[in-house]
């Protein structure tokens, strides 16, 4: 019924979007968000117009990928899911063996022309795989199926954690887990699961790398190490806090423009935004993100099969996790894990992945067989 509302809309532009199999509200929200992002980035990187052009190029590419993905019928995703997943696992394994070392971690595969991060691909491949697995199973899943699904999630998670890339592995675990959740994981089990994870914390701690442990410790008390790893969080909190209700104004953030804020065009770009636009700007930005998430969940609930439903739900929630982890980290609520602010932070790979995900959402939504009354 809702779909009918959009399809019967007279607006020519919306029709154009629909003919491209794009969901108008979601597309508009994404465009708005990325426009916002460009503005912040312009301020964050000292009004460097070259950087804006590079980001714009990436954005165009990412939107192109989204449009492309929207054209592919979801049945194809379902068909390809196991193969993409298998390829992803193989690539991840080879990264561990042959990968390039960047910033102390092996994350990249160098194919001569293109440097490629297989973990990005896995962000989509993992939920696709789990959704594929549940697609023909009766739901809610049996305990056996649940265990298999868990294993499917754990394999890429472990491979990426080994690189080590804690942020991405957590995102992939979350994406996989969300599929299981939407498939109908029993509430009791969910609670039990949470308890197991809590109990496992010391074990995880034991297997963590030094720099990961340091991040956690720094998160717990950043003032302990104000010049070392605590510096990021302290300066970021100062930037956000000094922004106040109305902010210092666009291009007027002192923390960012005087270089006190590190990583300000990438992971810490939210602090730049909060400093310059204040609490009011923050409310608007977060509202936009929430709208995207909710719209994603609506699309998921209107999907016509389990695969589409589970995948769409998982992708939407993963987007929320992105946001929550990044803003939580920048505001000192969560430890520093390298998660960018989705669609705003400078950087290419994650943006393409995200937009590919939204492309899949739109494909799921626009390829429904219409049941007119």
């Amino acid at each position, binding site marked *: 019924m809702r779909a009918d509302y959009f399809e019967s809309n007279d607006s020519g532009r919306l029709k154009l979007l629909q003919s491209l199999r794009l969901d108008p509200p979601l597309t508009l929200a994404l465009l708005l968000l990325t426009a916002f992002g460009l503005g912040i980035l312009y301020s964050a990187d000292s009004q460097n117009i070259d950087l804006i052009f590079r980001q714009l190029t990436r954005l165009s590419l990412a939107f192109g990928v989204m449009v492309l993905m929207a054209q592919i019928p979801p049945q194809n995703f379902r068909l390809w899911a196991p193969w993409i997943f298998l390829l992803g696992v193989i690539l991840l394994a080879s990264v561990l063996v042959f990968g390039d070392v960047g910033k102390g971690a092996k994350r990249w595969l160098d194919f001569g022309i293109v440097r490629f991060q297989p973990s990005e691909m896995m962000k989509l491949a993992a939920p696709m795989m789990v959704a594929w697995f549940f697609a023909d199973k009766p739901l809610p899943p049996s305990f056996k199926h649940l265990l298999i699904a868990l294993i499917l999630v754990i394999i890429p998670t472990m491979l990426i954690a080994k690189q080590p890339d804690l942020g991405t592995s957590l995102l992939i675990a979350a994406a996989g887990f969300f599929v299981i959740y*939407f498939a*109908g994981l029993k509430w009791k089990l969910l609670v039990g699961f949470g308890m197991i994870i809590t109990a496992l914390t010391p074990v995880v701690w034991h297997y963590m790398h030094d720099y990961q442990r340091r991040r956690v410790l720094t998160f717990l008390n950043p003032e302990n190490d104000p010049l070392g790893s605590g510096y990021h969080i302290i300066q970021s909190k100062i930037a956000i806090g*000094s922004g*106040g209700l109305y902010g210092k104004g666009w291009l007027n953030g002192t923390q960012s423009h005087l*270089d*006190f804020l590190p990583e300000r065009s990438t992971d810490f770009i939210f602090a730049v935004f909060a400093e310059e636009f204040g609490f009011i700007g923050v409310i608007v930005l977060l509202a936009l993100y*929430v709208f995207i998430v909710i719209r994603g969940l609506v699309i998921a*609930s209107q999907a016509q099969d389990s695969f589409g439903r589970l995948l769409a739900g998982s992708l939407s929630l993963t987007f929320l996790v992105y946001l*929550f982890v990044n803003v939580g980290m920048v505001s000192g609520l969560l430890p520093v894990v390298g998660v960018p602010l989705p669609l705003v932070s400078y950087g290419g790979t994650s943006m393409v992945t995200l937009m590919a995900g939204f492309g899949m959402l739109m494909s799921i939504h626009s390829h429904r067989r219409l049941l007119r009354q």
Partner: protein
Amino acid sequence: MYRTLIKDLYMEARIFNVRAIVAALVAIVLISLLLARLFQLQITEHDHFDTLSNNNRVRLMSSEPNRGLIYDRHGMVMAENRPTFSLDIIPEEVDALDTTLSQLGNLISLSESDIKGFNKSIKRRKPFQSITLRSNLSEKEVAILAVNRYRFPGVDFKTKLTRYYPMGSSAVHVLGYVGRIDEDELQRVDSSQYNGSSPIGKIGIESYYEKELRGQRGYQKVEVNVQGRVLRVLDETPPIPGKDLVLSIDAGLQATAEYAMGDNSGAMVAIEPETGEVLAMVSMPIYDPNLFVHGISQKAYTALQSGGQRPQFNRALSGQYPPGSIMKPFIGLGGLDASVIGVHDEVFCEGYFMLPNEERQYRDWKRTGHLDTTMKKALAESCDVYFYKMSYLMGIDRISSFLDQFGFGKKMGIDTTSEQTGLLPSREWKQKTKNTIWYPGETLITGIGQGYMLATPLQMASATATLSMRGLRKPPYLLKAMRDHQTGEMIDSQPPEHKQISIKSNRHWSNIINGMKEVVHGRHGTARLIGEDLTYTMAGKTGTAQVYGIAQGEVYDEESLAKKLRDHALFTAFAPIKKPKIAATIIIENGGSGGRVAAPIVKQVIDHYIHKNYSKNAR
């Protein structure tokens, strides 16, 4: 079991919708959590973070005030500020520091200690702070560097005003000097006004009037980036320059006195009796205070210390000498005031004096004696026996309390550093410090300015000035006026409070002064040599202070004694007698005779002063 294998599409959708709603709720909870956190940071704790943000970016930079100048009484500059060039480096802006240093070393002279000091301060500075590699560049070096500067990014000259004493070593003991502040001084001073490289007055006028000369530092509030590079000035308080000082010193007279004293070690103080203004204050030998401004080199310092003459010792204020016969006019005045001997009474001098019931002979300098001696003769010929008798009759208590009125034995309170008290012995003093009683013989030698008695040249000159003014005591001071740079106003300094020494009969002042006139103008006066061609009247008193005790019955032979052990030669005088314009006291260490060595130097100095200032009406 069977049922569960069949997919129930309707139920699946229902499960999903429930879960999606739960997920949406969780999403809203999570976002609310973020908003709560951001509310806490941006609203509740905004002030705290705003302060931190400002602390990050705003720095206070201070600027040194210009130090006040020092003039002599006629407006001649005695201390000024000159631009000096230093070579400064900002290490962040230099590509290869070592090569740059060695290339600079080829152009100008860089000592090992320059480089060592440079490397040391690199570790202690803030980012983007420039470090001085060499200070006090010569004009030639500045020219060479200016031509080659394009080769050295991050290397720059800095000009700053540094203290310069245009008269060189002249009046060094009056002015003192400034130098770089040291750790101890840094602890004591107001930390808002000084930093580790501030100059500070170390001694003399520069130190005593440090606060006035220094002025107030200025401040600049600047915005810096994370590297500490200054981006813009937010607020500025300009420095307030220090006040200019006008001293009572007559620079010409000072130089004349220094020249007249030649190679002798010693001191000379000249005072204007009417006011107490110090006209000249010489301590010989002198040294160049400019050496200390940039920090004296080890070599120069060693050279200064060698020779055993201790040039840095300010003899005029810190030198405590036995005043010798210079004390006789004062003892004489006290004796007349106490009426122990009348002014025309004669004392017979047979070359020595003996206390009743004592074997010891207290000898006169003239072995054959002065025979019948009145006060006038006793002063003119410096008869010891007359004053032995007079002080014996007075007793130490009366001597001490009388001399105390002239300021002996305590600081005169002159407005500079290094003043010593001298020593005015008394019964109580001896009991307290030596824990023995006072012996009558000690009274006798106190009466001729020997024994325990010690006085600084300043005390002797000031006492002479008081005598010349017939008891009007104007304590000596150096600061005549001060000029405020902001108002341009010249403010005369408040002279210290004066006193009148009262004696029973004012005629006694004349009696003593007449005796002193005889010293210079009389036929038998000990300083008659200088009186011959005087164009004005002068009253004086010679003195010869014993450094070396002469045993009973031994004859003092000047020639055979090593110079070090020779007597100090003293002379004190004032002129003209009727309306005294200048009073001066000199001590020439190991000079020998006061009349032959010391008096002519004083004459030269007083001549210069009288002729220059009062040539017409002085005669």
